[in-house]
C-alpha cells in the first residue's frame, strides 16, 4: 500500500503507541485544541494528538476526526525518517537531494476521490478547522499545501501557506511575495486570468516534509516529496483542472478553486510561526469550486507557531540546507541545529576549530541560506549542540562582542518579524563566534583556559543509580 497518513498512524500505533493520545471526549476546534497543545508544550511533552470528536464552531460534533501535533517531537520526526535526531543536518541533506518521479494513477484508484462535491455542495466549514489564537479572525487551515502551476511551463509548485476560511466556499490566502506560488499567481494575473489552485491536506509526515523542500522555480515538489517519502508519490488529476494540475491521490482532503485576478480582501491578524500575531493585511482569496476527500477524512490541523509547525516542517529543512551550503566552504563544520526556541530565526553551528577565522566565515556562509536566519551562533566541538545551556555558556565565556560579532545591516528581514522595518522589510542579521581560539599548532593544547572536568576514570565509575534508587531519581527537583 502507498504511504499516506493512514499507514503512518498504523506504524505509530504499532511502533510507538505511547507517543499517540486518542482524545475521545468532545473538544472544540476553536481555541481548545491549541490550548491543549500549549499546556503539553509547557511541560515539554509532544505526543501526536488524534481528536475523534472535534466540535465545530456551530457547536455540533464534526463527522471528521482531526490529527494535530503530528510533527512536534524531534525524536519522533527523526525516527519517521530513520535518522538520528542529532544528525538530521547531514542525513536529511542527503535525503532531500533524492528525487523520485511521481506515479500518475486513475481516479478510481485514488482514495481522495471517494467523495466529490462541487459548486454549492461545497462546505469547508464541515471540517474541524482550528482557530488558534485570540486575535485570529476565524478558523485557519494551517496544514494545507497550496498548489499552483506556472502558466508558461505547466510546472506545478506547492507550499504550506495559511488560509482563513471566511465562508463555506471562500478562503483567504497569504502567499509570501517571495514564494514560488506568488510568482505563479502574478503570472496568471499578468495574462488577465484567474489563477487555478488546488490545496491538499493530510499525508504521511515524510511526504509533507519532502513537499516542503526548498527548490528552484519552476520545479515541482512532488519528486522531492517522493524522495523523502521513499517511494513515488501517487498523483491524480484535479476535478477542475484535469491533467493541468495534479494532487496526491492518497491525501485526505483537496480543495480546488481559483484565485481571482487582482482581487484582495482583508486577512488576519494571525498568530504566526514567530510566536507573534501578525497585523491584518490585504491578501488574495480562493473561490472554492470543488472539494474532494476520503469518506472518513482525517483533517490535519497544524499547530501554527508551535513545535508542530517548527520542528519538522521547517527546522529539519533549514538544518539540511545550511549544512549543504556551509560544508563546502568550511570543511570543519560538524553539525547544525535550528532550535525550536528561535522559531526559525536562530541556528547553532558546530565546528572543529582548527584555524582562526572559521567561526565568522561560517556565519557569513550560513546567513544567505534562508532569509529568516537572523542570528547564527557558532560553537566548538566540545559543546553539546542540542543543550541550549551550553550554547549560552559558550557565548558567556568564549566571545567578546567587539571582536566576535558579525553584524549585517540592511539585509532582507523576515516578513513576520515585528522588529523588522516596515515597507522594504529590511533587517539586521548576523552572528556570534562563540568558539575559543584554535591550538597554536596541531597537537598542542589551546592557548585558552581549560574546562572543569572530572577525571575520565572517575566519571566512568560513578553512577547515580549506585547511590539512590531510580524511583527517587524521578522525584528529584530540577533547576534552571
Amino acid at each position: 500500500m502507498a504511504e499516506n497518513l493512514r499507514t503512518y498512524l498504523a506504524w505509530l500505533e504499532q511502533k510507538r503507541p505511547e507517543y499517540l493520545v486518542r482524545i475521545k471526549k468532545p473538544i472544540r476546534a476553536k481555541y481548545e485544541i491549541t490550548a491543549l497543545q500549549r499546556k503539553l508544550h509547557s511541560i515539554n511533552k509532544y505526543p501526536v494528538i488524534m481528536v475523534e470528536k472535534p466540535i465545530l464552531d456551530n457547536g455540533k460534533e464534526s463527522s471528521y476526526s482531526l490529527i494535530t501535533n503530528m510533527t512536534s517531537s524531534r525524536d519522533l520526526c527523526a525516527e519517521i525518517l530513520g535518522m538520528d535526531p542529532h544528525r538530521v543536518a547531514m542525513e536529511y541533506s542527503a535525503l532531500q537531494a533524492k528525487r523520485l518521479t511521481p506515479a500518475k494513477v486513475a481516479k478510481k484508484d485514488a482514495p481522495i476521490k471517494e467523495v466529490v462535491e462541487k459548486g454549492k455542495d461545497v462546505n469547508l466549514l464541515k471540517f474541524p478547522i482550528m482557530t488558534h489564537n485570540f486575535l485570529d479572525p476565524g478558523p485557519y487551515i494551517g496544514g494545507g499545501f497550496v498548489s499552483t502551476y506556472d502558466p508558461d511551463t505547466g510546472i506545478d509548485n506547492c507550499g504550506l501557506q495559511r488560509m482563513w476560511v471566511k465562508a463555506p466556499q471562500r478562503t483567504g490566502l497569504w502567499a509570501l511575495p517571495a514564494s514560488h506560488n506568488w510568482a505563479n499567481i502574478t503570472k496568471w494575473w499578468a495574462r488577465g486570468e484567474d489563477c487555478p489552485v488546488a490545496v491538499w491536506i493530510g499525508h504521511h509526515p515524510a511526504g509533507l516534509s519532502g513537499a516542503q523542500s526548498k527548490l528552484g522555480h519552476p520545479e515541482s515538489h512532488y519528486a522531492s516529496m517522493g524522495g523523502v517519502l521513499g517511494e513515488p508519490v501517487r498523483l491524480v488529476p484535479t476535478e477542475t483542472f484535469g491533467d493541468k494540475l495534479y494532487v496526491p491521490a492518497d491525501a485526505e482532503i483537496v480543495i480546488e478553486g481559483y484565485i481571482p485576478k487582482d482581487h484582495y480582501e482583508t486577512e488576519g491578524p494571525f498568530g504566526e510561526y514567530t510566536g507573534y500575531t501578525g497585523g491584518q493585511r490585504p491578501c488574495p482569496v480562493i473561490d472554492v469550486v470543488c472539494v474532494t476527500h476520503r469518506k472518513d477524512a482525517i483533517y490535519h490541523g497544524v499547530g501554527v507557531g508551535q513545535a508542530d509547525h517548527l520542528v519538522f516542517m521547517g527546522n529539519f529543512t533549514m538544518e539540511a540546507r545550511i549544512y549543504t551550503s556551509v560544508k563546502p566552504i568550511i570543511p570543519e563544520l560538524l553539525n547544525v541545529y535550528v532550535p525550536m526556541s528561535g522559531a526559525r530565526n536562530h541556528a547553532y553551528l558546530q565546528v572543529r576549530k582548527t584555524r582562526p577565522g572559521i567561526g565568522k566565515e561560517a556565519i557569513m556562509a550560513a546567513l544567505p541560506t534562508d532569509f529568516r536566519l537572523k542570528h547564527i551562533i557558532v560553537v566548538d566541538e566540545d559543546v553539546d549542540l542540542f543543550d541550549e545551556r551550553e550554547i549560552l555558556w559558550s557565548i558567556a565565556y568564549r566571545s567578546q562582542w567587539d571582536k566576535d560579532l558579525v553584524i549585517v545591516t540592511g539585509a532582507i528581514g523576515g516578513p513576520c518579524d515585528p522588529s523588522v522595518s516596515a515597507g522594504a522589510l529590511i533587517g539586521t542579521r548576523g552572528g556570534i563566534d562563540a568558539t575559543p581560539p584554535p591550538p597554536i599548532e596541531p597537537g598542542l593544547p589551546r592557548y585558552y583556559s581549560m574546562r572543569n572536568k572530572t577525571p575520565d576514570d572517575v566519571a566512568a565509575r560513578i553512577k547515580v543509580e549506585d547511590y539512590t534508587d531510580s524511583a527517587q531519581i524521578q522525584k528529584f527537583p530540577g533547576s534552571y
Partner: protein
Amino acid sequence: MIIEKVGTSKDIWVTCPHCRQLYYVERSFWEPTFNHLLLYCPFCHKEFDKKDSPKVWGL
C-alpha cells in the same frame, strides 16, 4: 508618540468603531492600491472603514 524600535512602525493600531477594541493592521492599507479595503474587527467580526476608527496610532 515615541517609537523605540523602528519595526514597531510596521503596524498601525486602530480602534474598531463598533466595539471599541484595539488591534493592529499593516501600513499597506493606507497605500493607494488597498486604500478602499474595509478592515475587519477580530473581536466583534464587523467590517469598518478605517476613516471611522475613533483613534489611530502609528501613522
